């Protein structure tokens, strides 16, 4: 099987190249089919990898020596172990479903060809990122995703504000990218290799200065936080909603934001060598999940609400990573990918049904008009809220909360996580109730979903409800598949046992239900014109955007303008360039006086030159 590993990132890459080169000659619908077909090939290859024993061992394939300098070389090598197999499956399968959904969802849009090029390239970037066997190739995939996210968020670039949102996403994630690059440089200077296997075994050997490792871990954490929209670099994600809903689904579920989680899970021996940094990962996750959960409660734009919910759920994954439960973080990543892709694509249909209106305060009672959409959206909301027993979110999220209780700072982390669980229930069902429940409100249009939209939603809905059964809660004496399967790669987390464990599980079950109960109360208030969307603090996302605007963006623009006027305009253009221009123009005028076409003058100048030269050789030397 490992001979065909290249097909997984290769087929979307080839699809992107094909559409970019030849897409102008065919109808846009053909481009869409080519892109979807490329993803189908990729998804089938992933399935074949599972069937061919990919789940049992590590598949490795070196394709090409990328560069070789002296005794150092970087190869384009693919490596799939169990951790990356999870990511490859999520990116491949959910990515394929999103492509399938796009077929008719984006059919009446402009720029379809561009859209599919970048959509395919995006998935290819993610697959390169997760399958790379060295940090350099991984960074290539990482940057590819940054580029594609920029291009896709500002897909409707004719709207200046949407183009700005794309730029914002690019610039904010770039901060994280720079930190990650610095971390990679430090790793290379210290260990002299970028391959994962030699690098991680060198780290595990434990002869390294922990101070240096701490700095590396911190830089990688900043990089991961930038890509995964964790505090303090979370501001780009709500604005990334400017793109089409399918793009949001792709960014939030299958690719991009989960990259940070994978990065830390991949490099977990490094983080385990410096527990302080790992603690910071947990703290960042816990604070972010509460921050974003509260901000989500205040949103009235349907997509911004789901965006904040993503930040919050990624916060749970970071919390899981930070307390050493890497397998559980990956589990939550997989279930989150299913229900978040479902919610975003469902939100796209909702927006279309309401003639492009994003404001959930104007919505209501869509259940009567779109019964199928209501069912799948309910499944997604149940999974997001982590309703006990029936949703996958419960099985993946609850163990993270329990594992947090045993970590250092456990009390604080657990309280934040359980508060976040209440908030999650509240905002998930606030969204669901506002859109689907109650009497019909707002102007709707008849919007029929084709099979290529309904099928992905249905599949994802089923996955959102049933994926959790692969890891039933511990201590119930029921089969557990996921944790033991991943344990050889990432170890098994410690979970509370006995009475306290039962108590924590009970709390984890009650929290989302309490949140849902809260949601009913909030929606009643919202309908009356109040509710949480009237709280400015929450609606503005704790004024974080405005704070950055005041503290960083504006001073930066003032600095840039000052530099433009003083340094570029005056010092460079006027003084430096001006004097050069004056000198050369004057010199040219002086020299052109000699070229007046008067042959006698030329001759006398020649004589003068000869006399001077001869005189120099005779007398001066």
């Amino acid at each position, binding site marked *: 099987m490992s001979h065909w590993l290249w097909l997984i990132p290769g087929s979307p890459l080839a699809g992107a190249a094909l559409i970019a080169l030849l897409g102008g000659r065919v109808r846009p619908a053909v481009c869409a089919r080519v892109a979807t077909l490329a993803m189908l090939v990729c998804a089938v290859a992933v399935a074949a990898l599972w069937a061919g024993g990919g789940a049992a061992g590590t598949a490795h394939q070196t394709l090409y020596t990328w560069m070789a300098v002296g005794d150092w070389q970087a190869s384009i090598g693919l490596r799939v172990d169990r951790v990356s197999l999870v990511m490859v499956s999520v990116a491949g399968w959910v990515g394929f479903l999103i492509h399938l959904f796009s077929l008719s969802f984006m059919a009446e849009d402009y720029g379809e060809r561009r859209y599919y090029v970048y959509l395919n390239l995006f998935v290819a970037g993610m697959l390169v990122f997760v399958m790379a066997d060295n940090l350099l190739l991984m960074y290539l995939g990482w940057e590819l995703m940054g580029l594609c996210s920029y291009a896709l968020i500002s897909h409707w670039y004719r709207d200046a504000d949407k183009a700005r949102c794309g730029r914002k996403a690019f610039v904010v994630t770039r901060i994280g990218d720079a930190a990650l690059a610095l971390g990679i440089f430090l790793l290379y200077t210290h260990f002299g290799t970028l391959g994962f296997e030699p690098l991680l075994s060198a780290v595990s050997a434990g002869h390294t200065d922990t101070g240096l490792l701490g700095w590396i871990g911190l830089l990688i954490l900043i990089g991961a936080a930038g890509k995964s929209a964790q505090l303090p670099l979370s501001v780009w994600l709500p604005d990334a909603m400017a793109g089409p809903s399918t793009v949001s689904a792709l960014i939030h579920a299958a690719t991009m934001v989960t990259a940070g989680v994978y990065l830390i899970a991949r490099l977990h021996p490094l983080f385990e060598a410096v527990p302080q940094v790992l603690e910071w990962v947990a703290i960042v996750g816990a604070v972010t999940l509460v921050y974003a959960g509260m901000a989500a409660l205040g949103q009235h734009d349907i997509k911004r609400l789901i965006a904040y919910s993503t930040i919050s759920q990624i916060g749970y994954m970071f919390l899981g990573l930070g307390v050493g439960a890497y397998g559980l973080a990956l589990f939550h990543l997989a279930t989150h990918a299913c229900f978040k892709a479902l919610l975003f694509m469902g939100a796209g249909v909702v927006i279309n049904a309401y003639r492009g209106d994003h404001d959930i305060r104007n919505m209501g009672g869509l259940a009567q008009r779109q019964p199928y959409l209501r069912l799948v959206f309910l499944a997604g909301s149940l999974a997001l809220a982590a309703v006990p027993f029936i949703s996958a979110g419960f099985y993946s999220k609850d163990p993270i909360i329990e594992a947090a209780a045993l970590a250092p700072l456990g009390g604080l982390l657990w309280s934040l996580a359980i508060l976040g669980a209440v908030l999650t229930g509240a905002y998930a069902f606030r969204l669901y109730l506002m859109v689907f429940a109650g009497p019909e409100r707002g102007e709707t249009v008849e919007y029929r979903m084709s099979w290529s939209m309904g099928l992905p939603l249905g599949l994802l809905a089923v996955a959102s409800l049933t994926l959790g059964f692969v890891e039933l809660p511990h201590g119930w004496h029921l089969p557990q598949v996921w944790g033991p399967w991943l344990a050889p790669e990432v170890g098994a987390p410690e979970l509370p046992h006995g009475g306290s464990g039962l108590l924590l599980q009970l709390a984890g079950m009650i929290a989302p239900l309490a949140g849902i109960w809260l949601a009913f109360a909030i929606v009643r208030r919202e309908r009356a014109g109040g509710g949480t969307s009237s709280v400015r603090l929450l609606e503005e996302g704790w004024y974080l955007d405005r704070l950055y605007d005041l503290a960083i963006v504006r001073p930066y623009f003032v600095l840039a303008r000052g530099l433009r006027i003083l340094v570029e305009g005056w010092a460079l253009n006027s003084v430096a360039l001006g004097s050069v221009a004056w000198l050369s*123009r004057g010199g040219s005028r002086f020299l052109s006086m000699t070229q007046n*076409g*008067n042959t*006698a003058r030329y*001759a006398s100048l020649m*004589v003068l030159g000869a006399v001077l030269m001869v005189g120099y050789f005779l007398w001066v030397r």
Partner: protein
Amino acid sequence: MVYEPTLMTGALLFLIGLAMVLLRRELLFVLMGIEVMFNGAGLTAAAAGQYWQDSVGQILVLFLMTITGAELAVALVLVYLAFRRLKVTELSEIRSLRDEPTLPEESRP
């Protein structure tokens, strides 16, 4: 042997030729001036060959005469063509290869 008269004559011939090149206006006279300059140089070369007891000086003079003849043939054709095409016989009237004193406005950077 006394070299001063020979060298002085060579220098004189050279200066006379130079004066003709610089001061005369007709193309033919300028050419003649060039020939005179060549002869001055040739005379000096011959004297120098004598001084060093070396035949190179005389060989140089022979070459000089040959090349001067060839050069003159080409130059006379050019003078003739200048008269036919440009209707000029004077050196100062051939000025079409001059540089404009200032650049045109639009070609500035």
